[in-house]
């Protein structure tokens, strides 16, 4: 695990805490799949603190009432398959709802 990925752990825990405690109290809101919080978890653990945070901020910026929403995955690492394709082929996958 790279240093930056290790540094992102506390943020991942924070988002997980949100998913477990706060999110269930509210009706589902996100216009995207995966949801913004799931996107954040994947982005932070895949790309580490800096790029992960940056990707998350950009995604949150996209998730506004005028955006069409839809399927929007974290970009895959070079040489890795796209998450959307894995899901479409029913291959076990880490991304949560």
């Amino acid at each position, binding site marked *: 695990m790279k240093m930056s990925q290790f540094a992102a752990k506390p943020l991942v825990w924070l988002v997980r805490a949100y998913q*477990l*405690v706060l999110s*269930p*109290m*509210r*009706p*589902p*809101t*996100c*216009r*995207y*799949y995966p*949801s*913004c919080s799931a996107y954040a978890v994947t982005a932070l653990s895949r790309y580490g603190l800096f790029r992960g945070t940056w990707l998350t901020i950009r995604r*949150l910026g996209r*998730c*506004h*009432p005028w*955006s*069409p*929403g*839809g*399927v929007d995955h974290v970009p895959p690492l070079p040489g890795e398959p796209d998450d*959307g394709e894995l*899901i*479409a082929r*029913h*291959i*076990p*996958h880490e*991304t949560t*709802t």
Partner: protein
Amino acid sequence: MGDFFNSLMHPIELLVAWIMYGFHQVFTTIGLDPASGAAWALSIIGLVIVMRAAMIPLFVKQINASRKMQLIQPELQKIQKKYKGKTDPESRQAMTQETMALYRSEGTNPFSSCLPILVQSPFFFGLFRVLNGLEKISTGENEPIGPITREVAGQAEGATLFGAQLSDTFLGADNTATYIVTIILIILMSATTFLTQRQLMTKNMPASALDNPFAKQQKLIMYIMPVVFAVSGVNFPIGVLLYWFTTNVWSMVQQFYVIRKMPAPGSAAEKALHARLAKRGKPIPGEAERKAAEEAEAAAAAERSSQRVQPKSKKRAKKQGGAGAAAKKQGGSGAAKKKGGSGAVAKKKPQTDS
């Protein structure tokens, strides 16, 4: 980092302070005692109303989207049928992905987006900071925030609601009134959130969505929620709890309205709406097309059967050969105009004849 955060929060605190102060002025002019807890508590409620009212356009947008959802029902049901009875996480993920892709290609989306929560949370936090800072502002330890000067802060700090100060927290206070008011507010908050969620689950979900693992998890969490409220609530000033509770009430009423007027297709609420509309003799949305299709079919069947009323012996048919053929031609072209379903009916009928 702390300084950066403070300067980021300052404008929001200022806005919160101004809105609260504005409402306080209004309530004072109406005749409430400026130092009363009622005036300040109502100012907090006013803050909620301003914030939620500012988001009504988004709410309207969401309602329009749910109207459009009716139109893409057939496609949605196709996806649901494809994954019927499949509860493994891979299937659920694939199903959600396909559904979301459909929303995008159809240009509609039933979800409100994450922005409203992001916008609201700094205000919640701003109110928290304003209420928490009242005491220090009144003693002169902290700088005044906009219209909340030392005097105003002192007055707000001393304001009590049923004997509990609005800036008091359960953990930081040692008077019974604060304990009781906090506990009551926590119970009210849990109750409103619980009711909102339960209404969503029992009334506004199609039966097919209720038996998946996610819904079960949601159900479990619904019962854990009061504990979460209790644990966090004891750390918050009563004014913040009041804000939270008012927001919950607003959400509940808003959702009640949506479920009543625009229920999710296939849900219990939709059945109830259709029953209400039928009772008042009003047209049921989406029903018109279905009825029209049914009527067309019935008409086609009637046409067939009306032709069947005059059976002819082979002899007579031969006699009036020319006229009979012309009539048959007309009937045939009429049936061909109708949908494929009526064609099947048309095929069947002559068989019963012979």
